[in-house]
């Protein structure tokens, strides 16, 4: 079939790295998004301020610049801390800041900001009558959140989460620039060594296309399920 010149297994394990990266970043982004949205809606001025600062700053900076800052800056930071610990307490502490962690942290932070907006809108879309009803039943705040707000909010948040996930998937390619051996990196090295760019990049592009297309179908299916019982205006 398609001769990958012996790079096949490497490309495959690179693809696994890409998928792992995407899922871990998504988990972090969803967590940050929930925290961010809760702070924005909390009514606490300080929490609101921090969340607004966070989403505003993230929207102004390119993802690659953030990634480079975290990767290179993180290492310098770790070095400074380990120097300090060694000089003052003689504690030997050091770790290599690796591209995978930097990638997850950066993408989690970036998409956390977008998820914050998604969740905020979704929380606001839940009817206030629902919350009043929960109060009337004597639900605590936490109970209202878990049983009433959260499940109903998810339905409204789903399209936004889907869009963010599609962008996130494609952003994983950037982590190859800071040296993570994902499938883009493997393809780049193979393409340079064999002088066959199309041969290696086109299959990688096809894998990305399959991932985005598959996600699209899955999100459509989820959306249909989540909206069961909702009468839609035509």
């Amino acid at each position, binding site marked *: 079939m398609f001769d990958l010149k012996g790079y096949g297994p490497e490309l495959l394990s690179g693809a696994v790295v890409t998928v792992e990266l995407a899922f871990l970043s998504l988990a972090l982004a969803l967590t940050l998004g929930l925290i961010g949205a809760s702070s924005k809606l909390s009514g606490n001025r300080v929490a609101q301020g921090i969340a607004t600062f966070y989403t505003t700053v993230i929207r*102004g900076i390119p993802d690659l610049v953030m990634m480079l800052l975290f990767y290179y800056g993180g290492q310098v930071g770790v070095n400074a801390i380990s120097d300090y610990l060694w000089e003052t307490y003689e504690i030997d502490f050091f770790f290599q800041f690796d591209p995978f962690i930097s990638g997850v942290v950066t993408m989690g932070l970036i998409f956390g900001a977008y998820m914050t907006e998604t969740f905020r809108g979704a929380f606001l879309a839940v009817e206030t009558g629902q919350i009043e009803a929960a109060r009337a039943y004597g639900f605590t705040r936490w109970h209202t959140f878990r049983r009433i707000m959260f499940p109903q909010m998810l339905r409204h948040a789903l399209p936004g989460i889907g869009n963010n996930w599609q962008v996130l998937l494609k952003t*994983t390619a*950037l982590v*190859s*620039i800071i040296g993570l051996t994902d499938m883009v990196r493997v393809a780049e090295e193979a393409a340079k060594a064999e002088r066959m760019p199309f041969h290696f*990049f086109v299959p990688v*592009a096809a894998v990305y296309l399959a991932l985005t297309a598959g996600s699209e179908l899955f999100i459509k299916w989820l959306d249909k399920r989540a909206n069961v019982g909702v009468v839609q205006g035509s």
Partner: protein
Amino acid sequence: MPEFITQWLDQNEIFTTMTLLEYWDGLVNTIQLVFLSLIIGLLFAVPLAILRTSRNTFISGPVWLYTYLFRGTPLLIQLYIIYYGIAQIPGIQDTFWWEIFREPFYPALLAFALNTCAYTTEIIRGAIVSTPHGEIEAAKAYGMNWWLRMRRIVLPSAARRAVQAYSNEVIFMLHSSAIASVVTIVDLTGAARNIYSRFYAPFEAFIFVALLYMTLTFTLVYAFRRLERYLLRHQRPVGS
């Protein structure tokens, strides 16, 4: 200027005239690259969006395929394919095209323009298909032919609805353009990477460039908000 700022400027070794000039050149490159690719993308997106709304599958199908491929894969891969791939086209090195595409700027411009054109096409298509039916009926009742209807009714009304989504695409493009630095273009990010490796000063190099990008982003956001206000001025409540 306050004394502590002048003192800091005197003492630091990183932000000298040399490095600031490097950032300036990077800024010029970034703006050129983004502006040109957006203009080219928009110019092609309008006719493509019209074709995309055609009922004939042989016309709308190819456009759909193009936008699907370019929206479904990362821009970085598209850039790599074009940047490394062009040199591999048999015989290209003997034509005048080679003189142009040897410079990394032009393959990057081509990749960015193709990418933004795909997204813009879908944005405009969405705006065209959501044109209120009554507007088109009214135009028909006035005896306007297809071309006149498009030009006078559909496209201006679609433009108003597309502006919001398009402003997001512009900012997305500005941010995506940072990857130009991986094909040796010294754009803003490229300048920051050079300065980082010269001084081993990641915070100074990248935070400074992040601030520059933020300034650009928020200027664009402001400009688009003004444009939107202007385009939707007929919808503003009376007396506001």
